[in-house]
């Protein structure tokens, strides 16, 4: 992936809500503590989990400082960052550029690996279409090579050619003509030499980042198309599903709670700390729209919290309720923050 230009981070900031740059980075790279998830929810950027898994922390911090120097972002005394007037104008311009249509797919699939997988499938199918067996495998990825070998053993080369061409034409038929071309111009095949990102950028007048975004966007949605249309290629795509242990653990804890288990019992059963189970449950509250808040918070507690805390949830701090920490634990406080956020944010 080409290096992300500093400018692009403006998309993740707002003029009204001061945001913590580290939270944005944690969401983009899937370093997910409950706190990161909670604030990610407050910033409404949870769809962007794992979109830039390789992001370099130091470089990102440097880029944010750079944007502050350029007066596109401003930093308050607490280290929170928001857009300036100049920043808003730049963000609006950026919004006209190509964006990921389904960023959520990046937390479900390893999209950057799927880019190689699809290119390899194309090359293998293309060479076979021209009945060429002696060729140079131009995708240097062992995992992808193993996956395609295994699939071919089961389904055969003809199935690959037919399904791939069918799925591609069906999918690209509904896409913007230029985007479809950008996607295909990077394919390698029999007597077909790909263009570099730089060349595509020069030819189309789009930026390098935009070209990358189009490739990733179409790759992710093509993968989704394969799965949704129940193509024979589905198993290949499913191989690249991300391990989402955080999500699974959270749901497992939630299921046990729903069956009437107490946190202390679940902790013993799983041989984990109670605090860990609580964190799983907090995550589940963020992930699940129908989370049963009533199991942990009663009306009286909610009322008390409402009295103690200001209207703006972003301004909440646990120390505001600490006087009653006997009754109102951090767990309850955070759960209530999630519940209130759900009620006030659009989802």
């Amino acid at each position: 992936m080409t290096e992300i230009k500093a400018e692009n981070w403006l998309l993740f900031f707002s003029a009204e809500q001061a945001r913590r740059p580290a939270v944005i980075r944690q969401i983009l790279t899937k370093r997910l503590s409950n706190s990161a998830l909670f604030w990610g929810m407050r910033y409404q950027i949870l769809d962007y989990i794992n979109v830039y898994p390789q992001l370099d922390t130091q470089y990102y911090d440097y880029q944010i400082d750079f944007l502050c120097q350029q007066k596109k972002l401003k930093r308050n005394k607490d280290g929170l960052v928001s857009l300036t007037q100049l920043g808003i104008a730049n963000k609006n311009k950026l919004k006209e550029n190509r964006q990921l249509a389904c960023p959520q797919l990046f937390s479900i699939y390893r999209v950057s690996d799927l880019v190689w997988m699809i290119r390899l499938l194309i090359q293998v199918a293309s060479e076979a279409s021209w009945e060429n067996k002696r060729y140079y495998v131009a995708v240097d990825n062992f995992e992808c090579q193993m996956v395609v070998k295994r699939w071919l053993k089961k389904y055969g080369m003809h199935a690959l050619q037919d399904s791939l061409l069918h799925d591609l034409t069906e999918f690209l038929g509904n896409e913007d003509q230029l985007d479809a071309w950008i996607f295909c111009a990077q394919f390698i095949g029999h007597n077909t030499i790909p263009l570099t990102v730089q060349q595509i950028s020069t030819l189309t007048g789009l930026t390098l980042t935009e070209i990358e975004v189009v490739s990733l966007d179409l790759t992710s949605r093509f993968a989704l198309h394969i799965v949704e249309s129940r193509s024979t290629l589905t198993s290949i795509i499913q191989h690249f599903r991300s391990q989402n242990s955080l999500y699974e653990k959270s749901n497992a804890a939630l299921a046990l709670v729903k069956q009437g288990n107490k946190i202390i019992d679940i902790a013993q059963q799983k041989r984990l700390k109670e605090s860990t189970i609580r964190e799983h449950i907090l995550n589940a509250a963020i992930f699940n729209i129908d989370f049963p808040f009533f199991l942990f918070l009663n009306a009286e507690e909610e009322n008390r919290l409402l009295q103690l805390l200001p209207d703006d949830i972003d301004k909440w701090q646990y120390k505001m309720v600490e006087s009653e920490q006997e009754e109102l634990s951090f767990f309850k406080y955070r759960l209530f923050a999630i519940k209130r956020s759900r009620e006030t944010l659009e989802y």
Partner: protein
Amino acid sequence: MNIEEKMYDYLKKTFGFTDFKAGQKEVIQNLLIGHSTVAILPTGTGKSLCYQFYGKYTQQTVLIISPLLSLMQDQVEQLRLNGEKRVVAINSNLKFQEKKHVLQNLAHFSFIYLAPEMLRNEDVLRAISSIHIGLLVIDEAHCISAWGPDFRPDYLNLGQVRSQLNDPLTLAVTATATDRVLKDMLSSLNLSENTKVIRHSVDRPNIYLASQKTVDEKDKDNYLIDFAQRLPAPGLVYFSSKKQCDKVGELLQQKTGLRVASYHAGLSFSERYAVQQQFLNGQLDVICATSAFGMGINKQDIRYVIHYHMPQDLESYVQEIGRAGRDSKQSIAIVLFSESDQFLQRRLALRSLPSSDELEIYQRDPEILKNASQENESAELVIRYRQMGVAFAKMNQIFAQRRLEKLHAIQQMVDYVSFSECKRNFILKYFDEVNFVKHGKCCCQIGGQNIDIESLFKQIKALKPEQKQEMPASYQEILQKLFKVSW
């Protein structure tokens, strides 16, 4: 058929060539009668064909020790490009699982490329000892000699490794070796007296040799733009840094309208593939590259090689310009140099080796050494020597020697670019060749005289830069071509 006829027959059938290039036949013949061989053949003479031929012809496994990652990758890619699937590269790029898989199935491969540092890995050593090696190839064999500018410490143990593998038939190949380096090669590898040495001149008569003094980078850019506009394409421009490679490449494209792409280790695999293929296919006029480019690339009609920075030594210079004019037609090699180049090269050379003071500190405190090795290559080098059991005092000696060698090599390069007589004879003398050439007008530029490009290339028409890259077909057409269908 006698053996020679059989060889020609096999060459045609397997590689599609009707004739061997200079030296290839002799090398293969020597190997076939079981003589270990040292082949000193200039770049572009197809040294790799020698062992590929031997391996396929005798159906034996060939183990190739290759010191440069990029070189290894290039050769593996080249073999795969020719349809050879039983080829593998074992180097630090290999992920753990991949390596396990490869080592378990090692007998399955016909060509095994191995990075020398992998020989320190027990599992790797055990795996290669357990299979029959028909031919051991030491690529870039001059790296074995501390006298050469490219000395690699991991090559020190190759003699020992060779005996561990029961002294298999061995082929040591290199493009250049002075007499001193050759002697070192033979003794380090424990090659016997009757080892055959096949040596061809480094001279490439169809490459005109020139250098251009410049005052600063701006001046360099202007000269480069001027040369690229007047010289017939395709051409290669070499840089010492990735950053400048990209920057100057972009400038060159803007100013000349030529089709320029840059190529270096910072690009992704697929980008490198795209650039290589476009270049081979005549879709690019100029490639701006770091030395990572082109080691396995066999493009016959490269007309010029320009060095934007003065190289570190004549060995690598001669190798890199050897990519020009493989079709024997008139070509040219130009070094752009400025006073500051030699300081840059000296700094780079000295930085890569630890000083006596540093060694003393490292010896006293292993913890400091360990930490330093995380970030600087000279400390990492000390660690590698320690792992090979080299004492600090000995290391100090070696590094002092290496520093002298490197500075000497840079000085030779400086002398070459500013030499006031025949540059070709300068190179021949450097490589201890006994035959000198008679200087003529297609030989080289003497002193600072102007390079008369027009009369040098009057036979070859300069490419007009009108051939703008046009927007290729629609996506539908791309798919139709890929899948050989029509709608």
